[in-house]
């Protein structure tokens, strides 16, 4: 496929193109100048509601906004309930919202990056990627976004949690959502003290409180290339590479892999024995 920049694409055409990408079509991500904003945080922290409010504010500021909302695929059936759209309380010609499933990947789907580029090349000014509800280790999103937002809510932990490693180190800014909840003031002060160098915003996404300030910040943001970015990219590349190597392995050894899964589940084998057997299968390639 040779689709490159095309700002006259209809929503229908863009949607069809995204489906092809999702189904594995080989497509070189087109060039795009659009700002990519990654939004991550624990399940229930209010990412989807916040994104709905941000999208409304940004569209009202005259921007064309793309949203890619990722939810997990079932490890049992392969199906998924993609529920982020429920929080979106409007549709607009300048808003393109697409729900995608992880399809075997972790916090973000393999195709999210390419889809963001396609939306950018189709004339959208800012692309917001919502990750699966994540935890401390889900920071791959920082590698593919120009600006990464970590959404927290009061009771996300004490000052010891703030000392821990992972996403909280890598995120460019923290959004304290549900900031009308009891205990929010104390939590905000603690965040400020723990991260004096970080941008910290307070929002109540449900009522669009604090969202105007946050979206103005997003629009004026200039991407920073520093050691944090490098760490995120290292992690993302490693994740993609593991995925590629594993799919290659599965292509040749799916039966052996499934046999080992069943054997461990039936307690006929220890997990480490299964790993050794699978490594042996790999070397026979």
């Amino acid at each position, binding site marked *: 496929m040779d689709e490159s920049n095309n700002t006259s694409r209809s929503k229908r055409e863009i949607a069809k193109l995204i489906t092809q990408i999702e189904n594995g079509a080989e497509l070189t991500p087109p060039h795009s100048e659009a700002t990519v904003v990654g939004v991550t945080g624990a399940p229930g922290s209010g990412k989807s509601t916040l994104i709905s409010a941000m999208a409304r504010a940004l569209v009202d500021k005259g921007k064309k906004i793309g949203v890619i909302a990722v939810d997990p695929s079932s490890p049992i059936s392969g199906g998924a309930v993609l529920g982020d759209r429920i*929080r979106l309380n409007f549709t607009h010609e300048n808003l393109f919202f697409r729900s995608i499933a992880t399809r075997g990947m972790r916090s973000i789907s393999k195709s999210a990056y390419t889809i963001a580029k396609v939306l950018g090349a189709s004339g959208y000014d800012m692309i917001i990627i919502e990750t699966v509800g994540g935890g401390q280790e889900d920071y791959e999103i920082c590698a593919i976004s120009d600006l990464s937002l970590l959404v927290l809510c009061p009771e996300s932990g004490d000052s010891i949690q703030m000392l821990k490693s992972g996403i909280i180190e890598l995120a460019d800014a923290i959004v304290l959502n549900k900031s009308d909840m009891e205990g929010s003031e104390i939590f905000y002060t603690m965040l400020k003290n723990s991260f004096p160098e970080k941008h910290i915003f307070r929002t109540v996404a449900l009522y669009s409180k604090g969202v105007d300030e946050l979206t103005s910040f997003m629009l004026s943001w200039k991407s920073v290339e520093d050691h944090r970015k490098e760490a995120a990219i290292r992690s993302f590349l490693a994740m993609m590479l593991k995925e590629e190597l594993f799919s290659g392995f599965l292509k040749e050894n799916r039966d052996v892999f499934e046999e080992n899964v069943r054997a461990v589940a039936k307690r006929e084998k220890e997990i480490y024995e299964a790993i050794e057997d699978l490594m042996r299968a790999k070397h026979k390639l």
Partner: protein
Amino acid sequence: MSLRVMIAKPGLDGHDRGAKVLARALRDAGMEVIYTGIRRTPSEIAEAAVEEDVDVLGLNCLSGAHMSLFPKVIEELKARGADDIIIIASGIIPEEDSEKLKALGIREVFGPGSSVKEIVDFIKSLDKSRNG
């Protein structure tokens, strides 16, 4: 390739336990299910179905307003060049209305007494015919 299905609730009907049960059953059958949530307008539903590029759109209405709302969704999809999306419907829909809705292009109507399994099996059969 996962089948993508949207479950949508047009109009002023806040009862969505059935829609959620169905969404979960379709997930367990290996499909990717997008649920719009309650109280959507026909134009919001059509716009969402286009952006999500769904194979099947399931409309559910328990309020009795299906004869005014469902045809509007069909019109809105046509206006967006998306009338190839297969529409199925469920809810408190009498037999005589079912026939009228089918004549308008709704592929199948599941009225009171329909089982979750029937609906899941029907959508699966659509997938088979789609993949030839």
